[in-house]
């Protein structure tokens, strides 16, 4: 029994908040966020001159801050916001600042289960990552693109380890960047490093590496692949430890390399967003089979239908099914699951969510300002002023709809069979 099973899954609807109008004495109330279980609606509110707090349903945090922003729920239901007090910053969790205040704190990240929270931190003009409130011991003149390991125990970021004078082009080309894992830098110096990524067990780190101005490859634990390419995108670890895969560009075309060797020959105009199935048997990605012709490919086999744009590739938990959003010029969004297009188009769409058994898929769309919740392509009977991504029950038989209608926040549990 997981966290989700402990939620209220009784079919029906309830009003979580009757009125979303700002509470008395609140000068303004910012955009709302709904907790994963749909039981709480939160928003940053201005409670006085230069004083901000957070409203949760009809309550307000006791603490107030000079500034609050980036209000986000952790997957485990904790409510976080970046907060400023006495000109210093921290992350407030359910109203309480974590750790010491810093010169700046930003870019909150959570593990999937919410057990760990991390954020970038600047102290005395030096940069590091703070994990659950504790910054690295080693700090850098710059750090960015940080990652949090899936188990929530480690963090890594691209760090600048050698200072550069103004317009020091030659110095830059010699390599001034490294990846720091839990603050400890790799020995290697790189022209650039991008998007460090942890292995599923958190033991290894891979990153896109620019070895010279012209040679890109993937570095795994500071060891670059033997082969270099014209460009690379985000690497992914095989879930069972059978290597690291990444989209790579060669001869002006994109393919996929595993540990430096092509497993998808370069034939695509674009290839990105690789994801392995849970067993590692299948490898999925977004590809363009021609100029302006995007689709999803599994094991180098593209879906038949192509679209001007494909985004938000999502796999079912076991990775046997896939869904993506398609659009043209950011309009006419369609949801495509397993290569088949759901009926209808929308003005905007949110990523598909699969039920734990992978049998059902749901998504939120917006058309003409009305939000719709779709399960397996069919819309829920009612549309909303706003809807947040739906959540399936653990057995997949029910779906939780979190929405705003008529200035109130509602929580609806519906039978999947009703769709």
């Amino acid at each position, binding site marked *: 029994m997981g966290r989700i099973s402990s939620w209220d899954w009784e079919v029906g609807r309830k009003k979580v908040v009757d009125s979303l109008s700002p509470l008395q004495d609140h000068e303004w109330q910012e955009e709302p966020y709904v907790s994963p279980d749909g039981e709480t609606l939160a928003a940053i509110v201005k409670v006085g001159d230069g004083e901000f707090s957070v409203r949760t349903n009809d309550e307000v945090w006791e603490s107030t801050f000079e500034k609050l922003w980036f209000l986000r729920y952790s997957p485990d239901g904790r409510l976080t916001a970046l907060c400023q007090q006495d000109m210093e910053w921290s992350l407030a969790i359910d109203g309480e600042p974590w750790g010491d205040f810093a010169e700046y704190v930003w870019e909150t990240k959570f593990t999937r289960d919410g057990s760990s929270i991390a954020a970038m931190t600047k102290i005395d003009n030096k940069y590091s990552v703070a994990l659950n409130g504790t910054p690295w011991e080693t700090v850098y003149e710059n750090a960015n693109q940080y990652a949090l390991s899936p188990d929530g125990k480690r963090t890594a970021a691209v760090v600048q380890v050698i200072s550069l004078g103004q317009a020091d082009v030659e110095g830059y080309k010699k390599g001034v960047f490294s990846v720091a894992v839990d603050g400890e830098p790799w020995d290697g110096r790189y022209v650039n490093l991008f998007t460090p990524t942890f292995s599923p067990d958190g033991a290894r780190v891979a990153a896109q590496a620019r070895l010279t101005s012209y040679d890109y490859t993937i570095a795994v634990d500071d060891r670059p692949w033997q082969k270099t390419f014209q460009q690379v995108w985000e690497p992914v670890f095989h879930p069972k430890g059978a290597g690291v895969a990444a989209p790579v560009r060669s001869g*002006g075309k994109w393919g996929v390399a595993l540990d430096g060797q092509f497993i998808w020959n370069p034939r695509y*105009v674009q290839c990105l967003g690789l994801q392995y199935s849970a067993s590692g048997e299948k490898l999925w990605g977004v590809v363009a089979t*021609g*100029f*302006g012709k995007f689709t999803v490919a599994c094991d180098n086999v593209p879906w038949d239908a192509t679209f001007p744009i494909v985004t938000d590739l999502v796999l079912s938990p076991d990775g046997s099914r896939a869904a993506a959003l398609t659009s043209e010029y950011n309009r006419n969004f369609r949801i495509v699951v397993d290569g088949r297009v759901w009926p209808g188009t929308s003005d905007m769409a949110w990523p598909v969510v699969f039920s734990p058994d992978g049998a059902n898929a749901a998504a939120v769309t917006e058309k003409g300002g009305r939000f719709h919740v779709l399960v397996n392509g069919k819309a829920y009977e009612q549309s909303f002023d706003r809807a947040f991504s739906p959540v399936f029950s653990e057995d997949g038989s029910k779906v939780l709809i979190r929405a705003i209608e008529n200035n109130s926040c509602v929580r609806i549990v519906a039978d999947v069979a009703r769709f």
Partner: protein
Amino acid sequence: MIEIYTFVSGPLAWIAWSVFVFGSIYRLVSMYNLAKAKDGSSLAYMSLPYSLRSIFHWLVPFGTLGWKSDPLMTIATFAFHICFFLVAIFLGAHVVFWDTAFGISWWSLSDTTGDIISFVVIGACVVFAVRRLALPHVRNVTRAKDWFALLLVAMPFVTGVLAYHQIGPSLLMTILHILSGELLIALIPFTRLSHALFAVFTRSYMGSEFGGVRRVRDW
């Protein structure tokens, strides 16, 4: 001499035309294949309406900034191209030739008109040559290839006029005229004159980019 005439006006003509036809096909096909392989992000924007829009505007003398900027060049260019085709296709002697070779016949220019038009072509070539010599911005970029192309197109007209007016040995001039014409035809696909094959596509592409992507006129 007459054997040479028979050869140049017979088998050699067929060879020249074959080289032109097959050479042109080869150049166009290989260029298209190259475009498909390497210029996909350009081909995708080709648009017939915008291509035609662009071609139409550039077919109007003084209809574009370029044509307005150098009136003499504009007049010479239009006169050259129009007269070139008129003479090549409708000159009386050529019409007889088309009839003999292909069994097709059509209206022909009077000899006098043909003569005048030929002089217009030669005059235009003189303008081109003088520009290459006298204008610094043209001289600066003129290379042997450019003179060669000019020579190629001028020669058939010069020899044709000489032959028509019976200046010099008549048969020799006629042979030289046919030879230079054949040389011109055969070399069109392989010299600067290949713009005869490609200009419609470069113009169309520019028209398509400016019309479809950039949303402005390209003239």
